[in-house]
């Protein structure tokens, strides 16, 4: 495996607040990484730094480029969808394809047209004539027609209805992703993407609180549903998080001995969203 992106001591200040605070991470080739965090955690800032859209402190290398100084060069091999509906309203579908085939060395107009054939977007349409979902499909078609090694998606499906969201990720996974490509995605609706992720990074107030592969998560985290009689004993083991479920208590543990936990009940692998909630919750809140 080789690294697509490496950050060391990545920091971004806005006045006195640090949107990113001395962050280290590495993104390997062929992975689908979910960057997950609450609002204001620094997700967008991190993505913008990776894409050369903002200045930063610390060192950052993406596909061998310094993103901020070499954005144009980086974009020959990387691509991004930042938010949906950022295609200009006056742009005609046909012109967009023509423009990109003359300005982007790894863009295939034939591929773009083939992707669009599967949608209801027509070449004569202007963006302003398309629905939000169609704009997202159009943008995805443009991006998938780029033979990029690194694709960054920042809230690519925000505001779309369920049908479009499902289709978006299906298309991405079936028609685009392979072991040579790397995808980094942020979204609030990560229940929809968590099945396709290979890695997750949790970001909270500018710091990384978890950076692991999904396989590792299954080994590190375990969930047990405990009957009232054993709650005190289970709590004594040191749970990361607990909540009430139908009169029983669900404990989520990090890095605890599985045999010891098995005595309290059946062990389950928690979902990424459960781990997210557990990691993001303040332990003080839980005690209260």
């Amino acid at each position, binding site marked *: 495996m080789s690294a697509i992106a490496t950050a060391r001591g990545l920091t971004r200040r806005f006045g006195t607040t640090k949107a990113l605070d001395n962050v280290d991470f590495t993104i390997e080739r062929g992975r689908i990484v979910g960057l997950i965090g609450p609002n204001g955690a620094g997700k967008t800032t991190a993505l*913008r730094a990776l*894409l050369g*859209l*903002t*200045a930063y402190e610390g060192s950052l290398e993406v596909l061998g480029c310094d993103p*901020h100084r070499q*954005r*144009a*060069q*980086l*974009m*020959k091999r990387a*691509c*991004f*969808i*930042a*938010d949906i*509906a*950022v*295609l*200009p*309203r*006056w*742009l*005609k579908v046909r*012109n967009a394809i*023509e*423009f*990109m085939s*003359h*300005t*982007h*060395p790894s863009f295939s107009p034939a591929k773009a047209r083939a992707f669009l054939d599967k949608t209801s977007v027509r070449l004569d349409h202007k963006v302003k004539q398309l629905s939000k979902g169609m704009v997202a499909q159009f*943008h995805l078609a443009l*991006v998938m027609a780029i033979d990029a090694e690194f694709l960054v998606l920042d809230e690519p499906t925000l505001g779309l209805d369920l049908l479009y969201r499902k289709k978006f990720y299906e298309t991405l996974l079936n028609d685009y992703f392979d072991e040579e490509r790397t995808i980094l995605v942020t979204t609030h609706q990560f229940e929809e993407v968590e099945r396709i992720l290979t890695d997750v990074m949790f970001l909270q107030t500018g710091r990384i609180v978890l950076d692991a592969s999904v396989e590792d998560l299954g080994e590190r985290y375990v969930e047990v549903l405990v009957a009232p009689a054993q709650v005190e004993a289970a709590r004594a083991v040191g749970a990361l998080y607990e909540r009430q479920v139908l009169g029983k208590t669900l404990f989520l543990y990090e890095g605890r001995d599985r045999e010891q936990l098995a005595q309290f009940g059946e062990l389950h692998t928690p979902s990424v969203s459960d781990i997210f909630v557990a990691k993001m919750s303040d332990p003080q809140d839980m005690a209260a």
Partner: protein
Amino acid sequence: MNEFLYLIRRELWEHRALYVVPIVFAGVLLLSVTVGIVRGTTYVGSDHIAHQLQFLSPGEAGQALSVMTLGAWLLFSIVSAFVVTFYMLDALYGDRKDRSVLFWKSLPIGDTETVLSKLAVATLVMPAIVIAAVLVTMLALLVILSVAVAFSGANPFTLLWSELPVFRIVGSMISIELTRSLWFLPFTGWLLLASATAKRTPFLLAALVPLGLIFAEKLAFNTQWLGDTVDGYVERFFRPLFGDISELRLSPGEDGIEMVGDLGGFGAVFDVLTDPVLLVGLVVGVAFIMLTIQMRKRRIDID
């Protein structure tokens, strides 16, 4: 190079006013002149234009037509100055406002190329559109006048078409337009910088900062160096050119139109291009454009 041409095409896709406004203006101009000629209300001096024209020698008629061209050119220049000013104010702001900047920045196009493409539209493409519009308008006007002259009993081909100073007209339009682009580079650069910087209204930023500075200078030092400098700079371009132009007119004489002055402008263009003050303007203009590129690199959001 191909990429740069597509960047310019992109600008014309987005800002259709750049060519639609001159086309509409040409249409209105031609229509009103045609109506005037047909109704017999287009006068030069006290006589109908077609009636006047037939008393001229072909050389004089050619000169008369160049003066009309100059008039048309002046009108198109004024119109294009408005169009291009609003274009520049929007050029690096509009895509930040609708957030499509995030799409453009996902393409392997440098911020320098982007800014330069917009600069090229303002300084090269717009003049080319103006010149093309003037030529097409004059050609159409010539056809209309030919018909009018033919009705008055003269031969339009020997009178109007034989000694038309086409190359001279085109040559002086190109040279003056390009000289103007160079001379006004500080203004172009300033407008682009305002467009790349503004968080709300590029126009207010572009207008209020210089006005504020002029006002502050007056209050603090009771001087008006900045205002005088800008004023003098603008005047320094127009004086040699309009020195020529103001001499130039069609005046009704006893035997028809008399030509006064000469349309050339080449001497004036030479004067402007060799004026050392131009160098100062270019330095300021280039500085503004470099700042614009830096701003384009950094600023994406408008809030």
